[in-house]
């Protein structure tokens, strides 16, 4: 049985791949959205921290041999780096006129600076990160495509992390302050809560998510200093389509983009990259705030 000239099994396989790619986008887009939601900063260095997560994983594995340790440690390491970046660099733009632009420019500057640092430390060619032995091997073969266990791992991990994140934002005091800070930081400040610390933590959290996405993707892709570039732009498309300012937006956007990329790469490979930009243009024309965007965000 075929559809559009491709056997059904191939479609199922590609849907699965798309779902897994979507997971990576979800993790990245949520981090971006959290930072933007509270701080109004669109983090142009988000892709670079994703890349740093992958490199941190490489180093941890090189030092300890354990991927599992890397999975836990790398996001922490990069997250702490993110805290430092916020304290040392980002916070200098708060309150400045045109602060949002300054945020773009500063994070953009980081996205030029940090990859070259990485090249200095690790060299220009990429580094290999292997799938941990427990997760190698194929689970199933559908339509001639082998679906590895590692992809399922990504799916599971995302399915665990996302609800945890939701719980953090909606059921904890920290999350309450983050969400309150989004709507009224002055009030939050008046209540005696150290808002600037919340900003630092929020930024660190968003960065840690990006790094986590990097660790998780590392065994599947080429880990190179440039790996943050294209994915950043794709991430922007995810939040444009899904909508920023909500929790559902990045998730829905990530799933959609993951699928669009996966399916078009099967059906009409050449167009695969461009199609997401066309989709973005369509969303802009028909529903500028995105599918689940909060109305009035930067319109």
């Amino acid at each position, binding site marked *: 049985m075929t559809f559009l000239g491709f056997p059904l099994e191939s479609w199922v396989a590609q849907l699965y791949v798309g779902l897994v790619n979507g997971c990576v986008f979800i993790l990245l887009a949520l981090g971006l959205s959290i930072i933007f939601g509270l701080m109004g900063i*669109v983090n142009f260095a988000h892709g670079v921290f994703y890349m740093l997560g992958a490199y941190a994983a490489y180093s941890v594995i090189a030092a300890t041999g354990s991927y599992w340790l890397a999975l836990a440690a790398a996001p922490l390491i990069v997250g702490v780096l993110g805290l430092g970046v916020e304290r040392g660099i980002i916070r200098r733009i708060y309150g400045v006129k045109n602060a949002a632009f300054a945020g773009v420019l500063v994070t953009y*500057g980081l996205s030029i600076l940090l990859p070259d640092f990485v090249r200095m430390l690790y060299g220009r060619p990429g580094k290999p990160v292997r799938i941990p032995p427990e997760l190698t091997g194929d689970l199933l073969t559908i339509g001639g495509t082998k679906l590895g266990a590692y992809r399922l791992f990504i799916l599971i991990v995302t399915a665990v992390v996302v609800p945890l994140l939701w719980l953090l934002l909606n059921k904890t005091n920290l999350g309450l302050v983050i969400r309150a800070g989004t709507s009224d930081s002055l009030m939050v400040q008046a209540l005696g809560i150290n808002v600037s610390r919340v900003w630092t933590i929020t930024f660190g959290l968003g960065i840690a998510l990006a790094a986590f996405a990097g660790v998780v993707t590392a065994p599947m892709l080429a880990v190179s200093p440039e790996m943050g570039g294209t994915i950043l732009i794709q991430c922007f498309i995810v939040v*444009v389509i899904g909508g920023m300012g909500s929790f559902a937006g990045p998730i829905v956007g990530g799933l959609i983009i993951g699928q669009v990329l996966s399916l078009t790469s099967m059906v009409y490979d*050449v167009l695969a990259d461009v199609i997401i930009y066309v989709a973005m243009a369509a969303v802009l024309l028909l529903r500028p705030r995105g599918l689940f965007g909060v109305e009035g965000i*930067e319109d």
Partner: protein
Amino acid sequence: MAAGALSLLRRDRAPLVALLLLVAPFVADRTPLYTALLTEALVFGLFALAFDIALGHSGMLSLGHSALFGVASYTTGLLLAHRKWGVGESVLAGMLAGLLTAAVMGGLALRKRGVYFAMLTLALSQIPFFAVRMTLDITGGDDGLSGIPKLALAFPFDLPLSKHPRNLYFFVAAVVGLCMLMVRRILRSPFGRAMRAVRENEERARTCGYDTQRIKLIAFLLSGLFAGVAGALLTVLLEFVPIENVHWSMSGTVVIMAMFGGSGTFAGPFVGSTVFLWMKDYLSKRIEFWEVFVGGTFIIIVLFLPEGIVGTLKRHLRARGGPAAGTIAASPRPRAPASPTSEP
């Protein structure tokens, strides 16, 4: 007589600039800024000025100017290589290509404002990049567009360009100089003031009766037009179109140039392009990881010298008691933040 000349200079710096441009190539080869570098600095200076029409003068941060620049470069290149057009027509076509690309990009991206607009320009600018890759039979793909024949100017007089750096310089200087005059005219005009009002306070400009969406679009079109000229000129200069012209890193380069020199000033983009190109030329031969240097300098400028070189100089000169200037680059005013990036 000297007093008369001095007061003329204060009122209109164009003759001085023209003089500098005329004399430069004869002096340049003895300085670190040799003629070819200077020519490139003029082209990129125009590009940065075009970019700054959107940012410094209208308040729109575009991160997709590589599309405007690159599409123009390729248009000019294709016409020169495949259609054997003349230099003048090809440059004009490049200019139009920049304008049209700006129309499409602006039409879509201006549905949003501020940083969201910036993100959109970045994403949209990817389309020409992929288009170039997808049509590699015509464009050469990653290898760039070659096959441009020896170039010579036919009108207003015969002037060989290929392999004649000085001729190239004068051709470029003439075109860039003309563009500079045009931009200056626009900035001083009622429309230029309208652009500035939109930059300063879009909401208030609207309440005053300005159709700010239309003004922004037109400003973006102007930005695209001049970026197109710059892209076309680079093709003439290099006799080649590298794919980097249409890559998003080119958008970043022009932002850096504009910020280095001073956004919102007229000389800033040219100072910025010269400094950047010199840095790239000088440092990349000596330091392997010179981008760390550039990125670091950029961050320092954004944080501590947001007015750039020219802007900061202007501020210091003004503080010594000159008349209040009409055009002022956006300057930081630290105030207690409500949210880190909301206007207080």
